[in-house]
């Protein structure tokens, strides 16, 4: 009885791709810096960089989402934490809470470090704030329970990264999205882009402590993550080729698109993989290839989400 119409959507476009991208990137950046700080080497400058840019990215991502809403007042229903009990099945509810609390814990984790940074204390408004009794008390608390705060932040961060995949996985009509590979892919990508971002920060911002060690480790992690991403994408490729018309049409769109093939797969994954591989195996004499690889990974991260949103195919039975 059914005739089919195949259609992509124009509901969640690049705005939402940006939301998912900055959400994942920000969350992973925070998690990585805090984990590094907690378990690798204490690294106040890195924490400050990571926390500020991570919170910034999350805020940006939230703003993008907020701006995209049709009815801004009603956002109150998802900001209220009770939403987790009322709508526990809705990933956006979780995601919103993850992001909100990530920003809270992330900031708290950074407060003691800010208080130690002369640069921060010199800042006009923030500097004064950091000198208040309350800030001093708060900073002390956080200092004392640094690991708890750090883990709360990290859990929310990982949650956020996973969420960016889960949310589009919950759209059952589109085979490209509606599969367990998506949260995995988006999480891996979030962390890979975060490592790339932090590598750039390390090279250009030079938070000098343990520079060598961190860059080498980050390069290695990023390499592994990129490799993992390639594997996941390879399985996606196979998955979409048969099984459902929706998936097959997505595959046709993706694998015929130069932006995806050259832009994302080529420049966003394979080239940085090779650059990093050489860096890890043999090392580079300058930081430029690593920085270049990282920039490519960052761009690739956005492209991944962009193309994913863009090529999700709905198969309508009319």
């Amino acid at each position, binding site marked *: *009885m*059914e*005739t089919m119409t195949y*259609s992509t*959507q124009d*509901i*969640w476009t690049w705005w939402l791709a940006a939301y998912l991208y900055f959400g994942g990137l920000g969350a992973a950046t925070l998690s990585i810096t805090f984990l590094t700080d907690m378990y690798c080497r204490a690294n106040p400058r890195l924490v400050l960089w990571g926390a500020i840019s991570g919170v910034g990215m999350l805020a940006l991502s939230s703003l993008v*989402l907020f701006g*995209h*809403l*049709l*009815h*801004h*007042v*009603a*956002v109150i*229903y*998802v900001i209220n934490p009770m*939403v987790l009990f*009322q*709508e526990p*099945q*809705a*990933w*956006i*509810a979780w995601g*919103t809470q993850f992001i909100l609390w990530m920003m809270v814990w992330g900031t708290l984790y950074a407060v003691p470090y800010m208080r130690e940074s002369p640069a921060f204390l010199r800042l006009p408004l923030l500097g004064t704030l950091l000198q208040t009794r309350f800030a001093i008390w708060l900073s002390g608390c956080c200092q004392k329970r640094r690991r708890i705060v750090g883990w709360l932040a990290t859990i929310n961060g990982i949650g956020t990264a996973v969420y960016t995949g889960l*949310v*589009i996985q*919950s*759209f*059952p*009509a589109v085979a490209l999205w509606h599969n367990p590979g998506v949260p995995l892919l988006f999480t891996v990508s979030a962390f890979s882009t975060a490592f790339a971002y932090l590598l750039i920060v390390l090279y250009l911002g030079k938070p000098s402590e343990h520079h060598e060690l961190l860059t080498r480790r980050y390069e290695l992690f990023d390499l592994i993550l990129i490799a993992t991403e390639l594997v996941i994408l390879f399985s996606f490729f196979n998955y979409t080729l048969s099984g459902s018309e929706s998936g097959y049409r997505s595959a046709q769109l993706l694998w015929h698109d130069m932006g995806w093939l050259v832009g994302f797969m080529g420049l966003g994954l394979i080239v940085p993989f090779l650059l990093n591989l050489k860096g890890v195996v043999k090392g580079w004499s300058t930081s430029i290839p690593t920085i270049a690889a990282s920039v490519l990974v960052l761009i690739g991260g956005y492209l991944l989400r962009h193309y994913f949103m863009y090529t999700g195919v*709905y*198969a*309508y*039975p*009319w």
Partner: protein
Amino acid sequence: MTRYAMVIDLNTCVGCNACMAACAMENQTPVWKNKWRTYVHDKEIGMAEQVRRRFFPRLCNHCSNPPCMTVCPTGATYQRADGIVMIDPERCMGCRACAMACPYDARYEVSYHDIKEGRAFYGEEELQRDSPGMDKCSFCAHRVDKGLKPACVETCVGSARLFGDLDDPNDPVAQVVASGAAQPLMAYLGTRPNVYYINDMKRRG
């Protein structure tokens, strides 16, 4: 219990679009941007001499397992005990996740601008909603609650749209669904739709 459902008989739908117009007037859809709660497609199907023109009405399926509701973070999308899937316009923040989740393209946006247009078009006093958000077919719950049929069913000049209660064994709609003569769309997605179609393919073309 009551479980509302619609059966669409493709054998007598003539593609007149009366349902679209009726629904638009009843439910104040944003006609200025060509968005409707129900659409009637006009398709050419079949091979060679068997070519056929098929009119295909569609609307929200009021799924028993509605993915649009699952993803809704505000609780704006909810299901009534009689199965009608509703949106509370005041509660909906317009994230459009439900529209992404719906496999049947049943939902559209109402923006601040549309509310403004709506005031001018349907009249300040009569406009039924004053907050933006998502919208879709409500099975005309407000009419059904008064014992009336949905607007599109009421006016269907081909009597192609039938509305009834699946839990009532005496209801013709329940009977035709139970007989298997009417089938839902893309049931394999697990949405458990409650709009059923009687096929028109038995005929010679």
